[in-house]
């Protein structure tokens, strides 16, 4: 009996767990999709052959309309009108205010001219995203074109071109969500104690001790802090320069840590024991204190 039970457990058909409801729902959805495709093609064919029955000179014109109209209507509704509407909305303010007579909250839209733009170009957060966009816009095409060109030259002279090419194209099939799992959870991952499970930190560990919080070292912040000294807060330059000038080797890693990252690090400390490196400013949740912490950072490598 025991062996048959084991066998049954091994052969457990997972589908059975999901229940009839599950399969009924999914089957209904799949059927709906199939019906939609068939109906769509049938309607298109019917209309086009219907337009073919027309006699005389009108036929060509009607068929032209049939061919072009769906795209024009859909784009008009789905892209042209929205683009105009969004542009119009950007000059307006939508507010919820109580009606003076009834006291009921109503949504009111009022024209405010360029106010929203004034806000966007003065708000530090928004300004930052605009600058980030520009930096990425310049960096990413440069890097990817550079790598691409180099690879094209190599591959041109290499044997097994097809296989190599498809391996390099492969990431195109991977979603950004998948890529973020790969890089966030696996490549860039860092542990403050124990074995490094992130691949990059694991590769780095034999060379240099102490994990690197890679996503925290934002190249944009570094670029901006150096190229546009006035752009962002001084916390950045503070952390960076102090770290390197005062001989705290961890400084260049810690200094670049943004405020948000520090909060994340603070949360993580609940799960992991505090890393000796963190004496360099990590536990201070506010960055201003963080920079102070750097000043008191002991010289020499706080390493293993």
């Amino acid at each position: 009996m025991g062996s048959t039970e084991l066998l049954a457990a091994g052969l457990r058909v997972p589908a059975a767990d999901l229940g009839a409801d599950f399969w009924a729902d999914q089957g209904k959805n799949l059927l709906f999709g199939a019906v939609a495709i068939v109906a769509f093609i049938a309607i298109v064919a019917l209309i086009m052959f219907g337009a073919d029955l027309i006699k005389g000179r009108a036929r060509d014109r009607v068929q032209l309309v049939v061919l072009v109209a769906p795209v024009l209507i859909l784009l008009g509704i789905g892209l042209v009108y929205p683009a105009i509407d969004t542009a119009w909305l950007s000059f307006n303010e939508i507010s919820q205010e109580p009606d003076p007579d009834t006291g009921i909250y109503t949504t009111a839209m009022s024209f405010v001219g360029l106010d929203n733009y004034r806000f966007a170009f003065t708000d530090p957060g928004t300004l930052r995203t605009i600058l980030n966009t520009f930096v990425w816009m310049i960096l990413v095409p440069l890097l990817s074109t550079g790598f691409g060109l180099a690879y094209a030259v190599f591959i041109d002279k290499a044997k097994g071109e097809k296989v190599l090419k498809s391996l390099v194209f492969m990431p195109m099939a991977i979603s950004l969500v998948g890529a973020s799992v790969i890089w966030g959870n696996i490549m860039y991952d860092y542990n403050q104690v124990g074995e490094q499970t992130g691949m990059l930190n694991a590769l780095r560990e034999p060379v240099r001790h102490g994990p690197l919080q890679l996503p925290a070292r934002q190249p944009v912040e570094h670029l901006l802090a150096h190229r546009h000294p006035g752009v962002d807060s001084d916390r950045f330059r503070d952390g960076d320069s102090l770290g390197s000038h005062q001989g705290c080797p961890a400084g260049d890693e810690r200094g670049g840590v943004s405020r948000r990252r520090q909060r994340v690090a603070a949360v993580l400390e609940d799960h992991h024991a505090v890393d000796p490196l963190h004496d360099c400013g990590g536990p201070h949740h506010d960055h201003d204190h963080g920079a102070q912490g750097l000043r008191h950072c002991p010289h020499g490598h706080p390493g293993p």
Partner: protein
Amino acid sequence: MSATESLEPAVVDPAPKPDRAAKAKERLSSPWATAAAIIIAVVWTIPTVALFMTSLIPGDRYRTDAWWTVMADGGLTFANFNQVLFDSFGDNSTAPPLLEYVFNSIVVTVPAVVFPVVLGLMAAYAFAWIPFKGSNFLFVLIFALQVVPLQAALIPLLRILGPENLGLAGEFSGVWIAHTIFALPLSVFLLHNFVAHIPREVLEAARVDGASHTQMFFRIIIPLSLPAVASLAIFQFLWVWNDLLVSAVFGSANTYPLTYPISNLAGDYGQYAYLVPPAAFISMIIPLIVFFSLQRYFVRGLLAGSTKG
């Protein structure tokens, strides 16, 4: 550098053809270039392999051990895949299994590929071969619409599809319509470039024989443009399957595709974080199969917009 050098003897010395080709081939394929290309290809592949290996780590070791450690002591297991697909995927044990989202992804993607390709081919034929007033202007306008970021269209389009108007938001049909609209500019543009290079004589002969636009579309345009249709379909398939934004905005809990639950849990340090890698790998399998099996068309599609014929 050696590419330009190797061209010179080919021009100067008019040696017999097969010999010259073999020589050129020999000079071109240098072992160093092969090595460099292999290294880059391997580096490009490591992250994907790492994801697969990480998804095999048992849950209780996910936090502390890296995949190579687990592999060394033989602890890798496929149990995570079983749990994620059939049992539950999410931040609690009662979350729905990923299989439900796999089906949603299929139901969202396939129609969202067929609709824009069919409509785009119709318009492409009209713009390429039917002279009418404003044809050029409209084509350039459609081409220019590729510039409109779809984020700018989200809110107004959601209002149109929303409960106050069409009431399709949150249904599969709403997601299909949104995907179709956002795909149309590229679809019309790519297919137009291909359709425009069908030999004029073929279409003129049919026209002289009295074929109408409908007949030409079904008898000539569709069969001749199948390669372009295939490559566009692959592009669109990958785009829709991997999309998160459009589905999140226009869909609902009944229609969310694979990317949605995974993105909710990605980067999470919760108890169920070890389920994210297997889920991400599952979400990649189908596009990878599509990519590797239809690669020929994919490369052709990359070139479709840039070269003639």
